[in-house]
């Protein structure tokens, strides 16, 4: 499984993002944090980043998320130093720290490759977190699955909408089945998105009472839809 390293100027922030991301993935995904200087002052140290990467390194690779400025430079230098030792499956992500870490653990937990995790996390950059811009994300293309897919619909019961925690559960459940799945928010007329990506799910801006459509095709399409519908009807375990 791909590992995640969080680099910040602040040790507390790096540790905090790690804690948040671990909570989202039930500790399945290896995560390490690097931040702050030896004396506790804010800053980054490339050697700390090297150690963090080394501590969770695996052949599948490690994705590094950094906050800003020197964190990015230290991460780049750490990547270079490790590559010189043959530890070269290390990528830097341009994604924002919190959204990126969340997207990264969900994607990594699905057993995705480093390339896939990197791609999923890049999307986090475009997350309209106030739900205001979701309509302009993609062209209004008809679903690619339409001809052969089965569909289910449900009304979102969660008072706070499809926020991060239910979105993670939704993505994890969708990933468990041998099926191509798409989801859209009919109430907001959102485009079809990939429900295995938590960022895509957050982008459909689903609020309580919105009607959500899910389509699936493939060997386990029916089971997938059943599981997702049940999950939604249980309020994603929030009630």
């Amino acid at each position: 499984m791909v590992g995640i390293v969080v680099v910040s100027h602040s040790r507390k922030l790096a540790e905090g993002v790690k804690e948040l991301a671990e909570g989202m993935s039930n500790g399945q995904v290896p995560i390490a944090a690097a931040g702050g200087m030896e004396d506790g002052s804010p800053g980054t140290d490339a050697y700390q980043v090297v150690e963090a990467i080394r501590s969770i390194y695996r052949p599948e690779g490690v994705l590094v998320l950094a906050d800003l400025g020197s964190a990015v430079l230290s991460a780049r230098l750490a990547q270079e130093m490790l590559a010189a030792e043959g530890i070269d499956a290390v990528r830097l992500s341009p994604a924002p720290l919190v959204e990126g870490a969340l997207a990264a653990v969900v994607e990594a937990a699905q057993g995705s490759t480093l390339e896939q995790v990197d791609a999923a996390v890049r999307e986090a950059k475009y997350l309209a977190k106030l739900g205001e811009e979701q309509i302009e994300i993609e062209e209004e293309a008809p679903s690619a699955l339409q001809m052969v897919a089965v569909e289910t619909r449900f009304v979102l019961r969660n008072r706070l909408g499809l926020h991060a925690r239910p979105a993670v559960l939704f993505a994890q459940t969708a990933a468990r089945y041998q099926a191509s799945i798409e989801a859209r928010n009919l109430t907001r007329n959102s485009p079809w998105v990939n429900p295995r990506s938590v960022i895509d799910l957050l982008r459909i801006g689903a609020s309580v009472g919105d009607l959500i459509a899910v389509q699936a095709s493939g060997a386990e399409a029916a089971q997938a839809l059943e599981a997702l519908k049940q999950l939604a009807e249980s309020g994603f375990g929030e009630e």
Partner: protein
Amino acid sequence: MINNRTIVAWLKLAARSMEENKGYLTDLDAAIGDADHGINMERGFKKALTLISPVEDRDIDAILKTTGMALIGSVGGAAGPLYGTFFLDAAKALSHLNELSNTDLVLLFESGLKGIQRVGKAKPGDKTMIDTLQPALEALRSAFAYGTDLIEALRWMVQAAKEGMESTIPMVAKKGRASYLGERSAGHQDPGATSTYLLIQCLLDAVESQS
């Protein structure tokens, strides 16, 4: 001729200069950055002095490498990985030398500059330390090509570094924290370009004090 004692003298002068100019660098950084460049540079070079004392008698690359590692591990800001890479890459280019010829000195700065560009991805004109370092290196090269002696070449270098540093005043920052200010970064001298100038000035001082 520059030998390992000159390099150690350079680093000691650099540490003193960073201490003396801590407030100045931090004030420059306060205008367009996060007001920590002076503090970070002082901390970094202080650490470097502690770490180089056991290797002072070794080859030049050992001293430069130790300096680079100290800066990477203690500066904290972007200057850490940037100056750290400068010294690490210079060390790599100069392995097992006890004295530097003119060509070696050019190689030191050339490798260091390339390292900074690789890690920082800045170009000339982006309002960074590159704007000091690049013209300084060119001046050093042309001084030697012209046949001047070491001290004279370093004076050319310092002059070009100073002009390079001052050239950052009207520039709009393209890299680092200052770039968030966009047009508002113009009118301020870049703190990184300034610390680079100070380091080059210290090298001239070190060579002059030993001749």
